[in-house]
């Protein structure tokens, strides 16, 4: 909500700025074109990351210097550290690179981004850069139209460079024109107050733009047109260095723990160098003057001096932080620990329960019911339904119509979290217990173990079902949609009926014999489904491919239903009661059920 409001406020402010000042419009357009250029450049380099970049990365990570150089070179070429960060995170995640090595590369990348300031200050502002942009754009577009991937990549890189140059020119022109109308230099501030204020401004601008390279170009363009003072430009550069960590933080939000640690290293480094530059600003300015003198840079060439400052304080940061890469990695690994997925643990299986046969059986029985709760939840989620609706009195068709769209549900993750641990614990418990006791309890445990296996099979069945269910649920063919609606109905129906049996709502209505009804229903549903699908194929209402998928999916449904019913017969029926003992004599065998279903065939 707040994020959206801020976004629209920013758009409103920009629109107001465009209306009030044409020069402001030119500057912001320059930033937008520059950012677009950066994106194009990254896209272009991505075309080559299918092997070359990875191969170089693999071969250049055996020493600290190589890692640093790799970071510097790659970022200099791409003018952005984002793509490199993604690549390094993927390498760390795959175990091909350790965190300390990754940190080394990221330090190098930080140093590499400072080359942008040199290029803009030394080349961009001194020549008609837009003149170079035009041919680059033309060649870029032509190469983009070719069919070869590599040429397309080169085209994208040229386009990126062209837009970068064009963006720089726009920013430069904007500030030059701005100078005639408004003098921003009147807001120049001196002393610590000025330093901290401009550091803050630098942070804010970079957080908004989310690219320190673009902020640096903006600062250099403003400095070149004398809209800001040299001292304030230094503070803005420090601010942009700190502000760029927001990109790393935002990127890490969606990354795994390894990506987060790398982002942590990035933040630590940039904040440290920023603080160092603030504290030792006078010393850095002196050092920059000395270095510029030796490099032959004029004392009044403030844009190049700013580029030198940017490089120097980052370089000092790298020199100080590089030896502590390893401890930093250890620190980050200690502080930022992977959150273990909350795995559902057994509630009833205890060592003491193993001591007595009856308590052991009761524990496994209770735990199996616990597993059923988790399994039925996963099965219903996978078919896009909720337990509260399925267990309600509401008509099942209405319940399914209430959720016409099935959301993608990560069954593997749910299985790991809610099934695997419990199932393993039950199997381990049963294997420790079953051979030590008398026959009766061992037999009961054997049946319970099979019931657990049937539950797991049912969950695996729904995983097979999910793929087509997600795909065909939104099909334009309403016959297919109807058939998948039927599939959802059949699965939900069994779970609803088992819910009634489990909660002993139908004790008086003969639970064991009620299972016969369910068995009969699922057999009949299957027969009906096959007939319907065959008719749909015959009448060309669905394709043969879709029809065979439906037949397979109906087989999965039948397996899910059968597994759940077999499990329920073991777990939900209390065979100790006299009534159930009598029911057992009346329960129909499979053969007898088929006779009821197909009387003519028998």
């Amino acid at each position: 909500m707040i994020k959206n409001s801020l976004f629209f406020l920013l758009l409103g402010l920009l629109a107001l700025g465009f209306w009030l000042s044409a020069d402001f419009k030119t500057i912001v357009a320059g930033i937008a074109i520059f950012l677009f250029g950066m994106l194009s450049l990254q896209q272009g380099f991505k075309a080559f990351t299918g092997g070359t970049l990875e191969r170089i990365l693999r071969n250049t990570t055996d020493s600290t210097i190589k890692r640093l150089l790799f970071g510097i070179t790659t970022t200099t070429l791409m003018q952005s550290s984002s793509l490199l960060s993604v690549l390094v995170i993927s390498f760390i995640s795959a175990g091909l690179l350790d965190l300390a090595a990754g940190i080394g590369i990221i330090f190098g990348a930080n140093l590499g981004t400072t080359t942008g300031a040199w290029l803009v200050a030394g080349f961009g502002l001194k020549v008609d850069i837009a003149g170079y942009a035009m041919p680059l754009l033309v060649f870029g577009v032509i190469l983009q139209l070719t069919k070869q991937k590599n040429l397309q990549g080169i085209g994208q890189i040229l386009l990126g460079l062209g837009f970068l140059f064009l963006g720089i020119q726009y920013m430069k022109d904007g500030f030059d024109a701005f100078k005639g109308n408004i003098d921003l230099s009147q807001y120049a501030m001196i002393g610590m107050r000025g330093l901290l204020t401009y550091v803050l401004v630098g942070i804010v601008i970079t957080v908004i733009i989310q690219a320190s390279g673009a902020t640096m170009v903006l600062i250099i363009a403003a400095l070149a047109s004398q809209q800001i003072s040299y001292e304030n430009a230094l503070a803005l550069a420090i601010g942009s260095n700190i502000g760029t960590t927001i990109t790393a933080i935002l990127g890490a939000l969606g990354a795994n723990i390894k990506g987060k640690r790398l982002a942590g290293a990035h933040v630590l480094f940039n904040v440290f160098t920023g603080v160092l530059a603030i504290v030792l600003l006078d010393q850095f300015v002196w050092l920059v003057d000395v270095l510029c003198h030796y490099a032959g840079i004029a004392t009044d060439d403030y844009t190049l001096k700013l580029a030198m400052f940017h490089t120097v304080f980052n370089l000092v940061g790298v020199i100080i932080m590089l030896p502590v890469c390893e401890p930093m990695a250890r620190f980050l690994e200690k502080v930022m620990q992977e959150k273990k997925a909350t795995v559902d643990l057994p509630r009833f299986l205890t060592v003491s329960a193993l001591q007595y046969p009856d308590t052991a059986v009761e524990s496994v029985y209770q735990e199996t019911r616990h597993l059923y709760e988790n399994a039925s939840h996963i099965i219903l989620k996978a078919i896009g339904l909720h337990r509260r609706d399925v267990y309600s009195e509401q008509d099942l068709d209405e319940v399914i119509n209430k959720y016409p769209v099935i959301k993608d549900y990560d069954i593997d993750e749910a299985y790991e979290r809610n099934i695997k641990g419990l199932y393993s614990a039950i199997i381990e418990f049963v294997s420790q217990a079953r051979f030590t006791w008398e026959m009766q309890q061992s037999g009961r445990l054997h049946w319970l173990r099979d019931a657990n296996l049937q539950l797991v099979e049912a969950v695996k069945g729904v995983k097979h079902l999910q793929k087509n269910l997600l795909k065909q649920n939104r099909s334009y063919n309403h016959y297919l949609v109807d058939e998948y609606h039927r599939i959802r109905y059949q699965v939900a129906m069994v779970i609803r009926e088992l819910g009634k049996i489990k909660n002993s709502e139908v004790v008086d209505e003969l639970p064991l014999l009620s299972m016969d009804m369910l068995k009969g229903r699922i057999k009949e549903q299957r027969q009906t489904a096959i007939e319907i699908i065959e008719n749909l194929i015959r009448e060309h209402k669905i394709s043969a491919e879709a029809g065979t998928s439906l037949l397979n999916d109906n087989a999965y449904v039948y397996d899910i239903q059968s597994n759940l019913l077999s499990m329920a017969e073991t777990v939900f029926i209390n065979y100790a009661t006299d009534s159930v003992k009598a029911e057992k004599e009346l329960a129909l065998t499979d053969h007898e059920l088929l006779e009821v279903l197909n009387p003519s065939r028998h």
Partner: protein
Amino acid sequence: MNKIKLLSRLQDFFNADKKKKKKRFEEIEGVIKKLKVKENKIKKMLNACQDVEMKKALQLEVNIIQAQIDKGKTVLKDL
């Protein structure tokens, strides 16, 4: 313990199997009775039902209950 009581106990001991059978008979009979109640309930629903698919499902339930009752009656006959 008087003689009558003693004789009654001896009779119980020798007729234990018969008693068990009787109990089983009564229980199965009870289940059949419940099944008949259930059958009538479903038949009423069947008569009131308009939905074709639902009717089919209810008819299947009636048929299954009928088969269970028949099986129960056969068991009772054999006892």
